[in-house]
């Protein structure tokens, strides 16, 4: 069995230290070592987006990142999107728009959509579809997800106004 490596990183604003095998993905480390199971595994080869997290300022599929690459990084997972008990506007709008059915893809969509809104607070429908094109949803046909992101953008505009 390969020797374990110590990794020091920051997850959802908290400093975290863990031991992992060099072959373990960041997704595995989050889920199996750190108990952050909100990040989901759908394919383990970067094609479904259920494991989407922020690594510094990049949107990544955590199954394609090694745990050791988290060293010194700032990671945001679905567990870090709400401010304490206050839901993020995207989380509220997903609920209000019924933008989830089974919910397995929802964490990945919310992380990816937050990255979009942080980058572009007033996205067009095409921009939303492009930014979410790496996240597969098999239940909704995306319609209500797109509407939820549009509404969250509107919420955020209200807050700023």
């Amino acid at each position, binding site marked *: 069995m390969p020797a374990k490596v110590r990794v020091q990183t920051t997850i959802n604003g908290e400093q975290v230290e863990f031991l992992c095998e060099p072959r373990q993905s960041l997704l595995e480390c989050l889920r199996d070592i750190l108990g952050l199971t909100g990040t989901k595994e759908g394919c383990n080869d970067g094609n479904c987006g259920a494991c989407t997290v922020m690594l510094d300022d990049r949107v990544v599929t955590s199954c394609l990142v090694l745990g050791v690459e988290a060293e010194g990084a700032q990671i945001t997972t679905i567990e870090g999107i709400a401010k304490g008990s206050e*839901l993020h506007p995207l*989380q509220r709008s997903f609920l209000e728009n*019924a933008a989830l*059915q*089974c919910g*397995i893809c929802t964490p990945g969509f919310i992380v990816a959509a937050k990255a979009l809104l942080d980058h572009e607070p007033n996205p067009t429908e095409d921009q939303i579809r492009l930014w979410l094109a790496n996240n597969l*949803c098999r*239940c909704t046909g995306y319609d209500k*997800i797109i509407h939820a992101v549009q509404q969250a953008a509107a919420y955020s505009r209200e807050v700023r106004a």
Partner: protein
Amino acid sequence: MSTQQYTVVGTRPIRHDGVDKVTGRAQYGADFQMAGLLYGYVLRSPHAHARIKRIDTTKAEKFPGVKAVVIAADFPPTPERLVDLGEGDTPLSYARGNVLAGSKALYRGHAVAVVAATSVHIAEEAAGLIEVDYEVLPAVLTAPEAMQEGAAILHDDLKTKEFGEQTGRVSNVAEHFRHTMGDVAAGFAEADVVIEREFNTSTVHQGYIEPHNATALWNSDGRILVWCSTQGAFVVRDVTACLLDIPVSHVKVTPMEIGGGFGGKIPVYIEPVAALLSKKTGKPVKIVMSRKDVFEGTGPTPGSHIQVKIGARKDGRITAAQAYLAYEAGAYPGAMVGPGAMCVFAAYDIPNVVIDGFDVVVNKPSTAAYRAPGATNAAFATETVLDEIAEKLGIDPLDLRLKNAAREGTRRADGPKYRRIGCVEVIEAMKNHPHYSTPLVGPNRGRGVAIGFWFNIGLPSSCTISVNADGTVNLVEGSTDIGGTRTSIAMQAAEVLGIPAEDVCPTVVDTDSIGFTAVTGGSRTTFATGWAAYEAAQDVVRQLKERAAKLWQTDTASVNFERGVFRSSDKSMTFRELAVQIDQTGGPVVGRGAVNPRGAGGSFSGNIVDVEVDPETGKVTILRFTAVQDVGKAIHPSYVEGQMQGGSAQGIGWALNEEYYMSRDGAMMNSSLLDYRMPTALDLPMIDTVIVEVPNPGHPFGVRGVGEANIVPPPAAIANAIYRAAGVRMRRLPMNPPAIMEAIWSQRD
């Protein structure tokens, strides 16, 4: 149409499990953890058809970290009998054989052995050390191929059943059945136009994002505990008990949150194996499939070979219809050709019909249900033939359908007569929709329509409701919540109790804690478990009337209850005011509902779709899509729309891209989500929905169920649109760019 006024039914409350699912707190099967957990890895056959001559697990068992290995021989030798796998009876040997291959591997991906180790990586490495001697056999991959004289035979003991009788003939055709009505020869003779076409559709997968997973603990007291992702916890319980030859009461299944199923999470694959490994090791064992395992080792929906012939008079009246449906069951009998045959002409009133169905085994994964199983393949054929007839006769395609639409009293060729149905209302809603009358401009563009039918089912459901002293209630039920049904069920209880949906706290519980409840499937959950909740709520009302009578020192019969208020002469009390006093009036109030409803109401759906076909590349872009469906009564319209949009999206994927791309020797060449191309957000437009409500007389609120009929029309509607855009009639699925280019080129030749 629905006119009844409700206070909760038809509103759009936030779903009860919503916050957990947007914050990542909801516990899905793969999230389950417990102390001492071992991890399983499944070794699968690399051959589509092979005799397994020897399995040697010695080296794997000695690998550091490995705790146990199981193969088929580890199952107890139970005598053959029929078992219910959630959607009908199957011989036990087939159910067991699909979980772990015995003397033969019948498809590439067929499970052969399973290793339990301290980590999944160790289990995977060790599985590579298992030696399996295969004698590779010729594989048959399509129904026409498997039906040929001299084709390689999958099961030496499979004898064709023909028209209900055993023939004694060993073949790959498990069953051939026929439905007849009237006289087709006379019907076709009467027709002014007769069109006959042949169709082929590829195997496609349900494509749920969450892979199958299960954790099992075979406890020292002889009881097995299972935590898994399933559409039916009671099916997992029953099949596990059956394969391991122990009483059902010794298995407790806790359904975790489920990440999609669409029918594919009804069969049981890994739970009994995890239990066997747990028995060998004394520890809990967890197995999680990879995406490749999901594609190669779980049941997709059948590929099919279909011929449809329809005749009509000049005025558009259909005089006769004939269908030949050969569906690929995969490795074990049970292709969904039965429902396909019942649905193929189900939307129409046709006097003369013959339908032949063939259930054919092939060397591909054993198929499972997929959203209106069998109906989409069949509708692709019927609805495109009808489009040709409409064109030939110069009749508007919706008018042609309206003229022949099934109505209350129409008899289907397989026997039943319809009760009140909404086929006509769906077609009229399509005709009246602005999408249908808006001109479609631009080159290479076309509009198509199609309709579809699915039965929906009843089956048993149980529910209990206990009253809390603060005027809320706890609702306990056994239906996996796959898309918001906790809420659609809770809303029906709330409607009866006259309280807000938010005052009902619904929980889906394990198989020890609720009465038997059949699978979440067949669009039955809001219909049947909703009905159980309705009954449980009525029971609560009955008991609370007694309490009110006690408080008011009057007759129970004199107490009325309406819209959340109990009344007797001049006295009145709200549900909440009475709930506060339940302790003083006799203690807890618990209502129960246990139903096995017969009144499932079929659902019709229709699509209007605009496409653009790129004549250079064959790529089809969906420009506009409208889905219309009769749902009986929409309990929570947002989630009803969601079902319609989701079914449409899956139908679009099936139409345009999705397929099991097989090598000649039976290997799936595209077993990843990169190469098995499901629609992304970029591939689809907004999906417009029209909810039609023709109440189902067989349900207290008129619910029909909405989960399935919506996937039936999209491939046909898109094919019809492609014809108008590019001038080619597509008769195979998927209609991907190569298929379209081939059609365009062959037309030019």
